[in-house]
């Protein structure tokens, strides 16, 4: 470990230095990437180590999972990425994966000689960012750094919310360490802590977290406090606000707690119970059908959100979904789960699940915002809208892809800028049209929601990205809004003004896991909706995108953003819908980012995108974005089919192939949105 930490390699040092500069990624990168490889097979371990060293990475090898875990715990910032075997005698590889995701939130690549679909799926559901089949070739290892960068990027995005255009964002994203000295995100106490820890090491990783957003790192102690608080309140009654109060941790924000709660709930759900079959079913559903399930789920959710469907029904549906293996159930479950269950797994579930998370996130959001139960009532949304108006936060809600979308829409609507973009950022899951944002108010919501199902919300709402961003974050729906909120372009909605959105506005709040989660889900945002909207609405619908873009840009050009956002969100959503969540989110986020930040750009882009995309159902945009992003997300990306909005998906898919980085316009570097892949 020392070697890793010590960063003996110059490359690391130089790379970090370069990163600090906040400009382009250092040339040496990915050299010096700190990899921890875990495998009980000594032959494989030796070969992997050699291969990784040949790639110029800093390698630490470990033949037991327990040892690896303690190494990671002792030195939280000592590694950038973990590669682990699936079958190990002392601990199941997936278990290790979960631990790492929960405690350290590092990207983890699973590998095995087993290439069975179920095992690979398991990797996806547990949040692995990639899965390698043995024998591993060196080529496969050469670009594992993409997962690290991607993660940073997503975190960065979340962080960005502060409106400042991130010109350096791109780089910053990558280099996390971008001199983001401002821990703008007050909420991020961890980041400051991390900062200190990182001083010595290559802070690439750390910096990103600190710089980008005040990501809260959920250490074991913190998590224990959290769990204690939750148990004290009772898992059903555990609302972020109360949890926060009980935990009494300075610097921790409600959003942090909310996103973490979301993940936790998902985690619990996963553990509890659902029978294996269901689990696999669900997870399968979720994963592959991210979009699909989301759709179904979304409908429910949206309906619920719009208040058309009582919360109880939704819960019932969810429950039903959970217990059933039927696809349908699975779907709603997934959605529902997401909404209701905040499991830690969120981040892990990049794919498919990501969407769900969003949904949950959305729900959360809504709750947070309003402090209401999951189902978002239209009025709540409206309220939000008023308050949040500018807050993209609402968007966030929208992000809750499927189920939430309905809700989100409302939220978004609310948040949506006054501009009435009509974007309905609703999560793509169902295509909820994020209608909300604009002052549409409730009626829109319901429209959106209802319409969402088909994802063709025509209601163009200016869902400002700000709110939306959270969505992309996926898990941290809450977080998102926050980020976005800040992002919302000034025009759009005075983020600050939205008192309700306080949570949202707290840009920095997203930090930590949420981000990671969101990342995955970020994409979720009702891409569908957006698309729908976009089609109809061109510029306006983009607002959503902004939201997803964590980018601060959202703020910039509200109007633009709206458009951009929309497109972005659409993109994001699409990405999400297609279950690519992970990948998409990122891309969407990126796109949105690009859009947002480019305030000016956005306008042009929007126009471009909008017009172009609208034709293609916005899908294009998203696809573009997605393609970029999605690329990362390997398995998950291909969910599009599930969307339910076949047309969307297909469009998306098609786009994906063909999408050239339109993003050029957008600022995002087009980091390989490869998501996840994991």
């Amino acid at each position, binding site marked *: 470990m020392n070697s890793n930490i010590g960063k003996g390699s110059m490359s690391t040092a130089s790379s970090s230095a370069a990163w600090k500069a906040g400009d382009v990624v250092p040339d040496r990168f990915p050299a010096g990437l700190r990899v921890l490889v875990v495998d*009980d*097979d*000594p*032959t*494989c371990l*030796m*070969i992997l180590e*050699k*291969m990784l060293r*040949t790639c110029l990475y800093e390698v630490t090898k470990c033949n037991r999972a327990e040892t690896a875990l303690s190494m990671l715990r002792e030195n939280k910032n000592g590694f950038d990425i973990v590669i682990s*075997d699936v*079958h190990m*005698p002392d601990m199941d590889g997936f278990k290790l994966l979960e631990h790492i995701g929960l405690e350290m939130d590092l990207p983890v690549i699973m590998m*095995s*000689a*087993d290439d069975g679909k179920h095992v690979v799926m398991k990797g996806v559901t547990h949040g692995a960012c990639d899965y390698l089949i*043995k*024998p*591993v*070739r*060196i080529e496969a290892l050469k670009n594992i750094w993409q997962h690290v960068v991607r993660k940073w990027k997503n975190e960065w995005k979340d962080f960005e919310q502060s409106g400042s255009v991130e010109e350096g964002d791109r780089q910053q994203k990558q280099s996390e360490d971008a001199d983001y000295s401002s821990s703008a995100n007050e909420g991020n106490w961890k980041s400051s802590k991390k900062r200190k820890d990182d001083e010595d090491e290559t802070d690439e990783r750390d910096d990103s977290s600190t710089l980008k957003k005040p990501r809260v790192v959920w250490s074991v102690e913190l998590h224990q406090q959290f769990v204690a608080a939750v148990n004290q309140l009772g898992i059903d009654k555990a609302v972020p606000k109360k949890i926060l109060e009980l935990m009494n941790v300075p610097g921790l924000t409600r959003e942090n707690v909310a996103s973490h709660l979301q993940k936790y709930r998902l985690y619990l759900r996963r553990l509890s119970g659902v029978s294996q079959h269901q689990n696999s079913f669900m997870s399968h559903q979720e994963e592959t059908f991210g979009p699909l399930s989301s759709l179904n789920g979304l409908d429910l959710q949206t309906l619920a959100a719009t208040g058309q469907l009582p919360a109880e029904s939704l819960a019932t549906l969810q429950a039903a979904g959970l217990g059933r293996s039927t696809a349908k159930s699975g779907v709603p479950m997934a959605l529902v789960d997401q909404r209701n269950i905040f499991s830690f797994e969120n981040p892990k579930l990049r794919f498919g699940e990501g969407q769900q998370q969003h949904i949950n996130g959305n729900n959360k959001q809504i709750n947070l915002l309003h402090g209401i139960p999951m189902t978002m009532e239209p009025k709540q949304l409206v309220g939000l809208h008023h308050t949040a108006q500018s807050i993209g936060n609402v968007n966030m809600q929208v992000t809750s892809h499927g189920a939430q979308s309905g809700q989100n829409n409302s939220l978004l609507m609310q948040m949506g800028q006054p501009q009435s973009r009509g974007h309905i950022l609703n999560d793509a899951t169902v295509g909820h049209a994020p209608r909300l944002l604009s002052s549409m108010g409730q009626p829109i919501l319901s429209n959106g929601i209802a319409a969402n199902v088909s994802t063709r919300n025509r209601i163009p709402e200016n869902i400002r990205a700000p709110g939306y961003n959270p969505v992309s974050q996926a898990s941290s729906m809450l977080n998102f809004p926050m980020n976005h909120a800040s992002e919302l372009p000034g025009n759009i909605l005075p983020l600050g003004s939205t008192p309700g959105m306080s949570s949202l506005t707290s840009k920095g709040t997203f930090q930590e896991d949420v981000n990671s989660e969101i990342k995955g889900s970020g994409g979720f945002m009702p891409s569908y909706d957006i698309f729908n909207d976009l089609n109809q609405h061109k510029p306006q619908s983009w607002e959503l995108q902004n939201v997803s873009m964590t980018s601060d840009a959202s703020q910039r050009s509200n109007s633009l953003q709206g458009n951009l956002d929309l497109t972005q969100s659409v993109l994001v959503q699409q990405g999400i819908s297609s279950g690519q969540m992970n990948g998409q989110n990122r891309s969407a986020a990126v796109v949105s980012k690009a859009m947002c930040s480019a305030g000016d750009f956005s306008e042009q882009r929007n126009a471009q995108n909008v017009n172009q995309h609208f034709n293609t159902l916005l899908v294009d945009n998203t696809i573009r974005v997605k393609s970029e992003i999605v690329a990362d997300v390997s398995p998950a990306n291909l969910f599009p089919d599930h969307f339910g909005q076949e047309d969307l998906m297909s469009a998306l898919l098609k786009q994906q192939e063909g999408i050239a980085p339109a993003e050029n316009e957008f600022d995002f570097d087009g980091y390989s949105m490869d998501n996840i892949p994991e």
Partner: protein
Amino acid sequence: MEVGQMQRRLMDYTKSLFMEGFLDGQFLQLQQLQDESNPDFVVEVVSLFFDDSEKLLNDLTMALDQPNVDFKKVDAHVHQLKGSSSSIGAQRVKNACIAFRNFCEEQNTEACLRCLQQVKQEYYLAKNKLESLFRLEQQIVAAGGSVPIMEMGF
């Protein structure tokens, strides 16, 4: 025998191993990983593989010898052997393991025992071949020559 001749012999031998399926592309990967900083990498890894595999084969023999065979355990061992053999490119050993796993799933002790035999046979064959290969290489180096890089042209 002079160096050039030895080198040619080595090349031919190596080629035959590939042709006959004893080795596959993964072995080439290993060879490519070897460099000045690690001149004995391939030998080291393969030696590690030999030690590990022999242990695994022993465990397998014991596990299948039980009155109540724990097929999960057997499967785990075979899975590991499959992974390591595939990592060094011992193709036939790997294939034998794949067949073995199928019978583990069926919980067919008789068939498993046969598979174990098969795996052992392949393993010892592969071991022999590789050891011969290494000996040839050593001879070349001892004679002052350098080991030619194998190009998978065929």
